[in-house]
């Protein structure tokens, strides 16, 4: 039964005012903070892949609180590694290195971190507010979407994921097709036909997405740690300066935070863009629009930290808009979140907007509250978290091994899981080495089932005439136009940000 959005928002808030839900959110915030700070290796995709088999056995809201609590704060504290070690702390904080590391070496690490926490917290709140406004604004449009339109939206998203975000579009499309193919393993629900099962009972229900994601992201990340021997062969910059100065810097640059946050929200909404570009786009925008940026950016300008960090956090709000309202994930984390929602019996997209609006609002509330808590944690525990960032690889690699093997084995408790995790770990290593984007494969894998379901429903209900529906035609035109437009390289170019920040990056690298 449908309820008014106001009541849904109120109910959504009441849902999370339960001790176990709130505790789960706090545990999620702790995990997310540790993930952001811990030496390069633990990323949110890996954390989601580890948590997924555990939380899908919980009550939905408790599990959601843990997952969203973790992802909401993961970007807020992501500046430790860029500022202290001069290496990206995650995919969305690569640009922070350019100005954060020179600040760290200059004895202003705490100021850079303070600016990053404050910018991250403000970005998170702006992203969440946008999400809050998007639901009532988009609801009438969403109600017009049926299976044919949703199929085309996913097709559009996948084509954009593969082409727009990759330097190597063909490899992106190959990875997507491979993911789609893997999604087809097992018994088809519609016809009962066994596809790619090879008489193996293990393959009857397909291969668990969480095992593939664990292996694909976990193994190469652990390998990076083992290769660089972080904490042993690389030492951090000293933690000096004042956190409050950084927070004041951010408040003084509030308009930059607002602008970059909307860059983040936009990146979150557009299919295919993601955390790999959000920081560079915001940094490029700041380098273009800030006074005196040409001289100071790359030499430790605090605005070069504020811009990417605010955008990176606001992006999560944009991500959730398409994930929850259209059922299309914008990255690996939201793809795995959709897997969890499906396991609990919720179908993200119009169906969830109609039937579970209160749950969507609970997610929004958790996202906002967790972001604020994450910011406070960053300020209060800055010194302790900095120690965590210096954790040696000899601790981190076995921890990753343990969680990868534990996570994989806990799905079915079948020794074949171990073989699968090893095989996909090796595949992940080669994909990363040879430039085949792993996120494209995961998106294909997660969306494969949904796309087939929507396509089947469309064909069963309308035959080929679904192609003549106005919404489908409009979306197909958008798909083709954006595909062609992107292939011609006119939509987004890193070179734009790169040319602005290129000198800065070179300067930062020279300084090391």
């Amino acid at each position, binding site marked *: 039964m449908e309820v008014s959005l106001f009541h849904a928002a109120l109910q959504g808030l009441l849902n999370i005012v339960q001790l176990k839900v709130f505790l789960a959110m706090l545990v999620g915030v702790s995990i997310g903070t540790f993930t952001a700070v811990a030496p390069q290796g633990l990323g949110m995709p890996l954390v989601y892949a580890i948590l997924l088999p555990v939380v899908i056995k919980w009550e939905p809201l408790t599990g959601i609180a843990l997952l969203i609590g973790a992802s909401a704060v993961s970007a807020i504290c992501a500046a430790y590694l860029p500022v202290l070690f001069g290496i990206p702390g995650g995919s969305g904080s690569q640009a922070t290195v350019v100005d954060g590391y020179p600040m760290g070496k200059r004895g202003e690490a705490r100021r850079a971190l303070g600016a990053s926490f404050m910018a991250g917290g403000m970005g998170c709140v702006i992203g969440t507010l946008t999400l809050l406004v998007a639901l009532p604004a988009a609801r009438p449009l969403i109600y017009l979407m049926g299976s044919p339109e949703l199929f085309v939206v996913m097709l559009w998203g996948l084509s954009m994921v593969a082409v727009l975000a*990759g330097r190597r579009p063909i490899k992106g499309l190959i990875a997507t097709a491979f993911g789609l193919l893997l999604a087809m393993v097992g018994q088809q629900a519609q016809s009962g036909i066994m596809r790619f099962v090879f008489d193996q009972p293990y393959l009857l229900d397909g291969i668990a997405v969480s095992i593939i994601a664990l292996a694909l992201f976990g193994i190469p990340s652990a390998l990076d740690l083992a290769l660089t021997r972080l904490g042993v062969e690389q030492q951090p910059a000293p933690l000096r300066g004042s956190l409050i100065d950084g927070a004041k810097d951010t408040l003084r640059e509030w308009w930059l935070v607002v602008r970059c946050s909307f860059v983040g929200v936009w990146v979150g909404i557009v299919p295919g863009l993601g955390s790999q570009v959000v920081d560079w786009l915001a940094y490029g925008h700041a380098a273009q629009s800030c006074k005196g940026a040409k001289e100071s950016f790359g030499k430790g300008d605090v605005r070069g930290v504020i811009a990417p960090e605010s955008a990176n956090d606001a992006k999560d709000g944009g991500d959730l808009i398409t994930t929850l309202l259209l059922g299309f994930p914008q990255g690996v984390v939201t793809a795995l979140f959709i897997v969890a929602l499906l396991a609990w019996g919720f179908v993200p997209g119009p169906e969830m907007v109609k039937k579970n609006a209160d749950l969507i609002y609970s997610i929004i509330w958790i996202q906002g509250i967790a972001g604020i808590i994450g910011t406070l944690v960053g300020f209060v525990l800055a010194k302790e978290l900095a120690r965590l960032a210096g954790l040696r690889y000899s601790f981190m690699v076995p921890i990753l*091994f343990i969680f990868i093997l534990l996570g994989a084995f806990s799905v079915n408790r079948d020794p074949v899981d171990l073989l699968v995790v090893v095989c996909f770990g090796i595949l992940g290593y080669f994909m990363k080495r040879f430039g085949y984007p792993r996120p494209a494969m995961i998106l294909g894998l997660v969306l494969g089932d949904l796309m087939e379901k929507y396509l089947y429903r469309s064909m069963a209900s309308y035959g080929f005439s679904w192609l003549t529906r106005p919404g489908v035609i409009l979306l197909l035109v958008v798909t083709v136009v954006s595909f062609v437009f992107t292939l011609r390289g006119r939509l987004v170019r890193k070179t734009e940000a790169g040319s602005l920040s290129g000198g800065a990056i070179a300067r930062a690298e020279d300084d090391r």
Partner: protein
Amino acid sequence: MTANFTLFFVVVFLAATRIGWEWPYIAKLMPVYVAAVPGLLLALLQLYRDMTGWEKRRGGGDGGIEMDEVFTTGLDRGTQRRRTLIFFAWFIGGAMAVWLLGIVIALPLLALLYALVEGREKWPVSLLMAAATFLLIWGLFEYLLEMRWPSGALFG
């Protein structure tokens, strides 16, 4: 080497097309027509580009943005290869140990040996890591969550 990896995708898509070709239309629509056939054509195109060094001539890519994370270690090729092989030996060894000994014994043992041998940590630190791992697996999963892990193949 890049061409060899692309060849892997060619073989997979070719096999998927061959296997799925006999299925009824409803079953092969997605795997064959949407995934395998386009995938095969793209993989063949990529194979041609790899074999002719097309990307290198064009400066390593198409001028867009890296979708996946890019992380350069700054190590020489020999060190990188040696450390990679050692890493995979540890991981595969760990997976085999889980199969043979069971997860409750294998993972603490893996933590102990990795910290001691590869990480060159001191005995007390390594033992502490092993104990923490044991507490996590046995204490949290087996005792508190009552999640029974299967015993290893060696113990029947």
